[in-house]
């Protein structure tokens, strides 16, 4: 087999993010992991949402589909069902995933679709220039909420856990080694794997900064008392620390992906199959309408 290099995953497009944006770290960790695993770029499909984070796909030389705001997960499911040999990665922001796309998030989780979902969670709407997002802290003051956010934040990790997620992890964009490990685990997982990445927006979020996370984050991977094998334990741990944790939070080794559970669903990619309907089958089906 040909060896895969970082160069294979680079595109000619210049990164457009603000210098210092957390999303650079996420892109780097993803590219490194794909190279480490030796997955050739044509076997990867990235489905990106709308937002600064959604630019992700523009910078990776894989198959990319940049969809409409909030619909990354259903589009990704479509790609996976059409060609289950592909590694399908959905990537987007906290607004894309937990506001306009929240409905799909919960349903992708409970279906356990064979898609890896990386959220660049900056607790803000970056692309629309700094409105509160569903993960913004209570009290956060922005132009669209000059008197402070009166809403409470969504807790993506506990939400995923209670919805039945089979792989839940949280990374921090400046901890490359851990993030790459978590993405690698996600790729190996059969079914839906959710990696929420705390990825600071240096331009619009003055609260959830690199320094803030460096002070606040507790690394569960390094916690000898923590085992990521109990859903209840995981929920308790993330609630106790208000989700300011990193590491592999929960993993269900018995996970069965949606596409494997579908009755009669083809084991080979649909995209390459003979799709003609035989005359005999056709007549048999017609006969049921007599």
């Amino acid at each position, binding site marked *: 087999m040909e060896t895969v290099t970082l160069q294979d995953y680079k595109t000619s*497009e210049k990164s457009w993010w603000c210098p210092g944006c957390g999303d650079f770290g996420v892109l780097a960790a993803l590219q490194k992991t794909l190279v480490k695993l030796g997955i050739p770029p044509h076997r990867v499909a990235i489905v990106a949402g709308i937002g600064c984070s959604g630019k992700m796909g523009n910078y990776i030389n894989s*198959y990319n*589909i940049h969809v409409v705001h909030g*619909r990354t997960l259903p589009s990704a*499911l479509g*790609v996976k069902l059409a*060609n289950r040999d592909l590694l399908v990665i959905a990537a987007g922001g906290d607004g894309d995933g937990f506001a306009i796309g929240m409905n799909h998030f919960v349903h992708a989780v409970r279906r356990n679709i064979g898609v890896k979902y990386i959220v660049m969670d900056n607790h803000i709407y970056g692309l629309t220039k700094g409105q509160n997002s569903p993960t913004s802290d209570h009290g956060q003051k922005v132009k669209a909420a000059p008197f402070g956010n009166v809403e409470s934040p969504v807790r993506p990790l506990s939400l995923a856990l209670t919805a039945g997620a089979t792989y839940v992890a949280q990374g921090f964009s400046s901890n490359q080694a851990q993030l790459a490990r978590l993405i690698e685990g996600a790729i190996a997982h059969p079914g839906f794997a959710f990696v929420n990445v705390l990825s600071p927006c240096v331009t619009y979020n003055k609260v959830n900064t690199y320094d803030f996370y460096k002070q606040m984050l507790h690394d569960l991977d390094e916690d000898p008392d923590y085992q990521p094998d109990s859903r209840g334990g995981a929920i308790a741990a993330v609630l106790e620390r208000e989700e300011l944790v990193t590491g592999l939070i929960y993993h269900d080794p018995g996970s069965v992906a949606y596409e494997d559970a579908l009755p*009669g669903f083809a084991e080979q990619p649909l995209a390459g199959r003979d799709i003609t309907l035989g005359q005999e089958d056709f007549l048999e*089906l017609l006969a049921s309408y007599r």
Partner: protein
Amino acid sequence: MPKSLAWMIGGDQGEGIDATGDVFGRVLSRLGYCIYGYRHFSSRIKGGHTNFTVRIAADRVLAPQANVEVLVALTQETIDRNGHLLLSGAPLLADSQLKPVLPDGCEARLVEIPLTQIAREVGAAVVRNMVAVGGSAALFGLPLDAFEAYAREKFERKGETVALQNVEALRRGHAFIEELGLRGRFSLPAPRPRERYLMTGNDSLALGTLAAGCRIMAAYPITPATDIMENLAGLFPRFGGAVCQMEDELAAITLVIGANYAGARAMTATSGPGFSLMQEGIGLASMAEIPAVVVDTQRVGPSTGMPTKNEQSDLLAAVFGGHGEGQRIVIAPGTAVQAFEDGFEAFNLADRYQCPVIVLSDLALAQWLQSVENLPLGGHAIDRGAIVAQEELDRLTGEFERYRLTEDGISPRALPGMPKGQFLATGVEHASSGKVSEAPQNRISQMEKRSRKLDALRARAGAIETSRMDHAEVAIVCFGSIVGAVDEAVELLRQEGVRAGRVQVRQLWPMPDIPLATALGGAAKVLVAEQNATGEMRQLMRIAGLEDDRYRSLVHFDGTLLTPGRVVAAVQELSVKEGV
């Protein structure tokens, strides 16, 4: 002898009215008759009046009949609402238990028949409707054995007792009418037995999509589209495909786009409210040039409108519904055979032109039973459109140019998984490489490329279908399910000496202005008939330059099915007022 006879059964929803209508229609179909079976229903599960009419003829009929010959009433409400449909002296079979009374002015002949009592005697209250079927068979002088055979076949899996009870119910009903001396009260024209199927447009459309190689269907339930999802859910596992019941229509359309992007044939089906939700996704498919098949089985809107009533009022939304100026193809079948053809062709068009294809069905086509002769599987071949060859990708030195500017606007696509074919498909304006570009000149050339793709469709063979247009002085233009009513109207008009003809527009966008202009060239009057309030197709024709002082509109939007009589009246009015 009348061209057709109609039998109606009415009662409360949840009383098996549909199932009974289905039995009656299917047996008559097997006896060699052509059937059109339609229902009146409301948006609730139990209770509320419903009725099912079976129109019976020797030749194909695809429209409702104005009156009925026999009415079976399981409730007094059925009599009150529908008694007027019976001509003087026509039998109204009512369950004696109702102590039925005829409303003032109703001159039907009330025939009380102890349906419930007989059913109890037979041993199962649920066979009440079969007693009525047996009685009806007698009225039409039909052989009971065909009904018995069907009941045995249908109820076999429920066990011997159930099957026997149904057969007995049929016999008792038949005997009761015979004793009253009403056997053969109506005689049907001689049947013309042939290999025939009784199906709805949803049934045949689902088969068409399966035959086209569609293997992924994503949808959110909505009347009257749901049967397509339910049909395919039963069929796809056998052929390796999957039906995904999604959380909403936003998910359904974007799943379909993802799947088509990755090389499968995928579709969704919805009705007005869901179609509105899909508009943003449809725009993505236009912009990123991804094939997508969307079926919109129209019903009365806006909003929840009248969800169980027929209308053709999503046409402009289908053509212009999204923001920006996205290219779409809109086709509209009018019969179950055409629904099969369009279910198939939609995928070829989508792959060939790499854009969304909207199949505009409507409630009447989607849900009402019609006789179908020969669905031609052989007449259709799968065409996947332009896909780049792997050898060509292997030879590439630079990037694959997915959106290369070509003369006809169509650029071969690579499918994910093909080495060296990687590209970005995006809803953002992009250069020929797929990379984002907002350069003015690029915008113009990509926009023109996407529009250019559809130019050839203006003259596509099969975009219109004409009937009786030879020397026609009045041309009736229509689309969708009302073609049945229009065709019947044309025959009635011709009998009266009016040289009428019909033009059915099967491809509504791009508007086939070239063949339409030719077809309508010789007509002195053009009546554009449609089931909506604002004459949506006429508006599209006007945009395409098909408008002059010969054009008139017939709009029908009360939710009821358009009848041949209404069309005839509209043409007669033209003649009287304008002297055609």
